[in-house]
């Protein structure tokens, strides 16, 4: 599986991460460990979801978990670059508002 989480940038407590893998029951264990570890060091975190090709309930649950952890630790967490798979699920479950992040929909993804 290699590097599921890519550390894109880290400075002054601001951390940029990218998830480059599916977020499913098969990967959440590892992803949770890594993401939790990163969160501990940050004041502000940005997670790039552009590389999430597939997401299931366990993945959604992990995102919900991260959001809650961040809130409780006073970390500003934002999700960016939602992939098509992520957007579809967040809409289905009416969770977009829950995360409160602007979802940028690229012009061509619906047709793809």
């Amino acid at each position, binding site marked *: 599986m290699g590097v599921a989480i890519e550390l894109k940038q880290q400075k002054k407590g601001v951390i940029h991460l990218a998830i480059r893998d599916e977020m499913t*029951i098969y990967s*959440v*264990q590892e*992803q*949770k460990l890594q993401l*939790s570890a990163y969160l501990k060091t940050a004041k502000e975190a940005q997670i790039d979801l552009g590389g999430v090709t597939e997401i*299931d*309930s*366990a993945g*959604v*649950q*992990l995102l*919900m*978990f991260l959001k*809650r*952890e961040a809130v*409780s630790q006073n970390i500003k967490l934002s999700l960016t670059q939602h992939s098509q798979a992520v957007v579809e*699920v967040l809409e*289905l*479950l*009416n*969770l977009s508002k*829950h995360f409160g992040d602007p979802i940028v929909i690229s012009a061509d993804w619906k047709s793809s």
Partner: protein
Amino acid sequence: MNELDAALTIFAQEAEELLTDMENALLALETMPDDNETINSLFRAMHTIKGSSGLFGFNSIVSFTHEAESVLDKVRNGERAIDAELISVLLESKDHTSKLVEHCLTHNDEPLPDELTIASERLIKQLTGRQVTGMQPSDVDDANLQSEGGGEISVDDNWLISLDFQQDAFRNGMDPLSFIRYLKTLGEIKQILTVAPEMPAGEAMDPESCYLHFRIAFQSDASKQTIEAVFEFAADDCDIKILPPNAKIDEYLKLLDAQDESYVNRLGDMLVQVGALTQRDVARALQSQVEAAETEASGKPLGEILVEQQVVQQPLVEQALKKQAQTKQKLAAEANYIRVDATKLGQLINLVGELVISSAAMNLIVERHGMSDAGDVAASMNALVSSIRDTALELRMVQIGETFSRFRRVVRDVSKELNKDIELYISGGDTELDKTVVEKINDPLTHLIRNALDHGIESPEQRIAAGKPAQGSVQLNAFHQSGHIVIQIADDGAGLNSEKIVAKAIAGGLIKANHGLSQPEIHDLIFAAGLSTKEQATNLSGRGVGMDVVRKNIEALRGTVSIDSVEGQGTTISIELPLTLAIIDGFMVATDQERYIIPLSMVDECIEMDPSECDIDEVQHYINLRGQVLPYLRLGDYFHNRRNHTSKKRESIVVVRSGQDKAGFVVDELHGEHQTVIKPLGKVFEQLKGISGATVLGDGNVALILDVQGLIQAAIKDKGRAMPRPSSQRLQ
């Protein structure tokens, strides 16, 4: 009897039955004040009496019952609470109605006597007087009702689906998303709420465990069943609740209303039928009902559980319950009872008796002439005849429960009068016995119960001082025992004081000072006529007045009464009665060419009278039967005064039992089972000992039916004597 008289008789009977029902219902309400069915039956009783009184123009009854009916209607609609006070007034009203009915039936031409008018007015005042203060808010909290259906996302025409997945759901291969995606194919998800209230924080959170809960407002025309089927695979890993849209309630209500009324359905089944519930909902509710019953003393009604589990709305449950009650009521009204003249029934039973005899005659002929092909026909006819016999006899059998429950009132009234706290417990009310016996046992029973209440049970203070609970108990029990019915009246009162009884008996000249009586024999003395005068009864701690009459009445029914008392702990009186069947299964034996019938139910076993096997004491008249002393009686000796036994003859012993007593009857031949029609013996033979009746055999001969109990006593007495009694005393 002209038509009007016939109608009046029916009115009188119906009114009496309704009033009895009403009394039972009122007494039942004392313990279960919220039972709607009982309250309904109260209302119906008053309503029906009012209606039929109107037909005959009995205005005094109509105007009185109208008031009672209105009050009961209020109770029924929940506008007025029923309490002990109202129950008392209603009981009085019931008695009063009974008096009014009697007056109208006997002296309808005369105006109502003053005392009845005054009583009517007083009761009406009591019934209606508290109307204003007794009102209860009738509008049940509407807001509450609606919120039960709603939750956070109540939308009227949406299904409300709540999915609480269990932690193992992911590990078991469930992906809640897939179910929700599938759900979308059935309709439109109007709103969905995804929450994870139980998700732990930090390290404790296991990302492979599922903490997700969903609340979905779903718009669809699909049935509950179809929607539930979406989650079928998740059922084990998810707590699913599907609440039908409020808009559907009307539809369900209509369906409920249109349900078949020909039989009473269970609540769950009714709601499943209209589609408001699925079998799974019901199974789950039943399951939690069972679990609740294990931990709590009182189980919740199913409807309440269903609403709590949020699988159905309150109004639906209410409607279903209402429908259920209506159906029950309708069925009860349609119950197929038909009044039959008792004499016609008697005639039928006599005829069946004759039929039994002629069928026996036919068997005899078939056997005698060896007609093997007729044998099959005879055998099947025999089977039919015996089932006709059983059915005919059952017609006269009634349950004793109704007689028993009348005593609730007696106990209630007497204990109030005496300032005692007494509870009546009834068991074995479904025991059946002949109607004539039921009628005749009523008086002795009343007497015995009154005695138990008055003399048996102590005052609450005395009871507490004696270390007993303040509330005394009287138990009425009935059961079958070897072809008899046993009725027991047991109290936990003071018991009989032997010393006082003995003192009274000596003073009354019944026994001598050196009596040497055993404890049971002393207790038995209270049945003696000499001990039953009034002033003695007041001195006697135990029972007194009229016990000799009680015994006489019971013996007139060919029954026996026995008493068992422990001083300080209570008294149990057991009445043993024959079922007085006109036809019995008998066991035929013969000795000296005479045939006798022993009631089959009293026969224990038959053994060969073989001196080498059993230890026979010819002088003391007993044998050693497998280590037990069994007194025996040679029927030939007893009835024929036969003295010189030709001991070469093969003899058999029929071991019979009556209650605890056992004895053996020595006979020459065993003929086996025989359907026996009891023909009572005439007055002339009333004094004959050892015989309870006679029967006509198939060949026209007469066989005597043995009075087993009497003969057992004779055998036991015989055992104690070395010399047989002179015969003149035996056949008195």
